[in-house]
C-alpha cells in the first residue's frame, strides 16, 4: 500500500518537473533553432561582410547582404524612441506616484493600461493615417513614412511599460527617506527629484531597458510607418528598415541564401535581445537588494 502511493506521488512529481522544465526547454529550442538556421548564411557571406556591409540588395543580380543599415536603423530608432519616451514616461510616473490626487491617479493608470493593451497594428494604422501625412505636410517632403514616424510611434508604444515600471520603483522608495528630506526643509518637488528618484534609480533603469527591448523588437507598427526601403539611416526622413522589419518584409517570398540571411538577421536581433535581458536582470537584482 505504502509503496503504491509512493510510486503515484513520484509519478506526479515527475509530471510537474517536466511541466516546470518546459520554459527552459522552449528557450533552448528557440536558441538552437535560430543558431542552426542563422549560421549557414553568415558563413557563406562572411561575418564581417554581413554585419558591416552597407548595402542590402537581396534580389539584385549580384546579391549583396550587408545588414549595417538595419542595425544602425534599429539603434537610431530605439535611441530616438527612448529620448522622446523616457522623459515623458518618467515625469508622468513621478506625477502619478507622488503628486496626483487619488482619483486622477486611478483614471490615469487605467489609461496607461489601455495604452499598453492596444495592438501594435492599431498603432501602425493610426501612424499611417495621421503621423505620416502630418510629417509630410509639416516638413514639405514627398513621403512622410520614415525614421521619424517610426521613432514617434515607438516612443508612444514604450510609454506604458516605462510609466508602469517607474511607478512601481518610485512607490517602493521607503517613506522615511522622503520624510527626512521634507523635515530638513526641502520642498516636495525637491524631495521627489533629489531623494526619491535617486533611490529608485535601478528600477527606473530597468524601466528604460525594458523600453529598449520593446522598441527594438517591435515589428508590425514600424513596418507600417517606416517606409521599408533598405537605406542607410542618413536623415530622419529617410525611408528605412529595422532589423525586425527586414525579416518581416521579405520572409513571405524569400528563398535560398536570401531566406537564410533573413534567419541570420533574426539571430542578430535575438543576440541584441539577450543582451538587453541580461541588463534588465542586472538592474532588477540591484533593485531587490539596495
Amino acid at each position: 500500500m505504502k509503496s503504491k502511493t509512493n510510486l503515484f506521488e513520484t509519478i506526479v512529481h515527475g509530471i510537474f518537473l517536466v511541466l516546470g522544465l518546459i520554459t527552459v526547454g522552449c528557450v533552448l529550442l528557440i536558441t538552437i533553432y535560430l543558431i542552426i538556421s542563422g549560421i549557414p548564411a553568415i558563413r557563406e557571406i562572411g561575418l564581417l561582410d554581413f554585419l558591416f556591409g552597407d548595402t542590402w540588395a537581396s534580389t539584385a543580380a549580384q546579391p549583396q547582404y550587408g545588414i549595417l543599415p538595419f542595425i544602425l536603423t534599429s539603434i537610431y530608432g530605439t535611441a530616438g524612441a527612448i529620448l522622446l519616451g523616457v522623459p515623458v514616461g518618467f515625469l508622468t510616473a513621478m506625477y502619478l506616484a507622488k503628486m496626483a490626487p487619488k482619483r486622477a491617479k486611478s483614471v490615469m493608470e487605467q489609461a496607461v493600461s489601455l495604452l499598453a493593451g492596444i495592438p501594435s497594428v492599431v498603432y501602425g494604422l493610426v501612424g499611417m493615417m495621421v503621423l505620416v501625412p502630418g510629417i509630410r505636410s509639416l516638413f514639405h517632403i514627398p513621403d512622410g513614412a520614415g525614421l521619424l514616424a517610426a521613432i514617434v510611434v515607438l516612443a508612444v508604444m514604450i510609454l506604458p511599460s516605462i510609466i508602469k515600471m517607474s511607478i512601481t520603483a518610485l512607490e517602493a522608495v521607503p517613506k522615511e527617506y522622503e520624510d527626512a528630506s521634507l523635515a530638513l526643509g526641502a520642498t516636495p518637488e525637491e524631495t521627489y527629484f533629489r531623494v526619491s528618484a535617486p533611490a529608485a534609480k535601478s528600477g527606473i533603469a530597468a524601466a528604460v531597458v525594458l523600453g529598449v527591448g520593446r522598441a527594438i523588437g517591435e515589428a508590425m507598427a514600424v513596418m507600417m510607418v517606416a517606409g521599408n526601403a533598405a537605406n542607410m539611416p542618413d536623415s530622419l526622413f529617410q525611408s528605412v528598415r529595422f532589423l525586425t522589419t527586414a525579416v518581416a518584409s521579405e520572409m513571405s517570398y524569400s528563398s535560398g541564401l536570401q531566406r537564410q540571411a533573413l534567419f541570420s538577421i533574426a539571430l542578430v536581433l535575438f543576440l541584441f535581445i539577450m543582451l538587453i535581458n541580461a541588463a534588465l536582470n542586472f538592474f532588477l537584482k540591484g533593485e531587490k537588494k539596495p
Partner: protein
Amino acid sequence: MISNRRRLFLWTVRGGMYLAAALTGILTLFLVGYVMAKGIPNITWQLISTKPSYLSGNIGILPDILNTLYVVIASLAIVLPLGVGAAVYLTEYASSKRLVGVIEYAAEALSGIPSIIYGLVGMLMFSNNFGTCLLSGALTLVIMNLPTIMRNTQESLKTVPQAYREGAFGLGAGKWRVVRTVVLPGCIDGVLTGCILSVGRILGESAALLFTAGFAHALNGFWDGLSSAGATLTVALYVYAKEQGEFGVAFAIAAILMVLSLLINLAAVLVTKYFQRRNAV
C-alpha cells in the same frame, strides 16, 4: 523664503510633470477617440457577418473573427495546463533553489523575446511540420504566453497560507492530494488574471501569426479552422491596411480591437477587485 534658483527648479519640474501627464492622457484619449470615430461608422452588419468574396467584391470579416476565437481557445487550452503545472512545480515541488532560478530566468527570457522571432521560430518548428495553419499559430502563442500564465499563477500560489498545506499534511493527505484540494483552488484568481492578460496578448498579436497561421479568409468550423490557414483580426487589419488599401475596413477592425482591449482591461480590474474583496473577508 525660497531662493530664486530653487523656485525655478520647482516650477520647471512641476510644469514638466503636469505637461507629461497631460500629454499621456491626451494621447490615450486621442488614440481611442480617433480610432472609434473612424472605425465605428464602418462597422456594418454585412461586414461582420459575411466572408470576403472576389466575385462580388464583398469584404466581410466573419472568418477573421472566428479565426481569432479559435486561436484564443486553442492557445488557452494548451497553455493553461502547462503554465499552471510549471507554477505548481516551482512553488510546491521544487527543492533546488538553483533550478527555480534557472526556470524563472528562462521565463523572463521568453517574455522578452520579440514576437517576430516567435513568428520565425514558430514557422520553423510548427509550420514546417503541420503546415501554415491556425494550430501552428496557436502553438507559437502557447510558448509566448507561457510566462504570463506561469507568473500570475505563481504569485497567487504564494498567497495560499502555508498553514493550509500543513493542516492538510497533518490530516494525512499525500502531496498530490494537498496540491489538488488545497493549493490549486487557492490560485484560481491568478489563473484567471493570467488568462485575461493572455487573451489580450493573443488578440493583439500579429507578427507571430503572420508566418505561422497565414492570412487566408476562409470560413471554417473549429477543427477545420485549426488545420487550415487563416488570418486573425490583427493580421486581417494589417493586410487590409498595408497591402489592399482598404482603410475603412482596417479602421472598423481597429475599433473592434479597441473595444475588446477596453473590455479586457475592465475584466482584469474587476477580477482583481473581486478577489481582493473575497480574500480580505
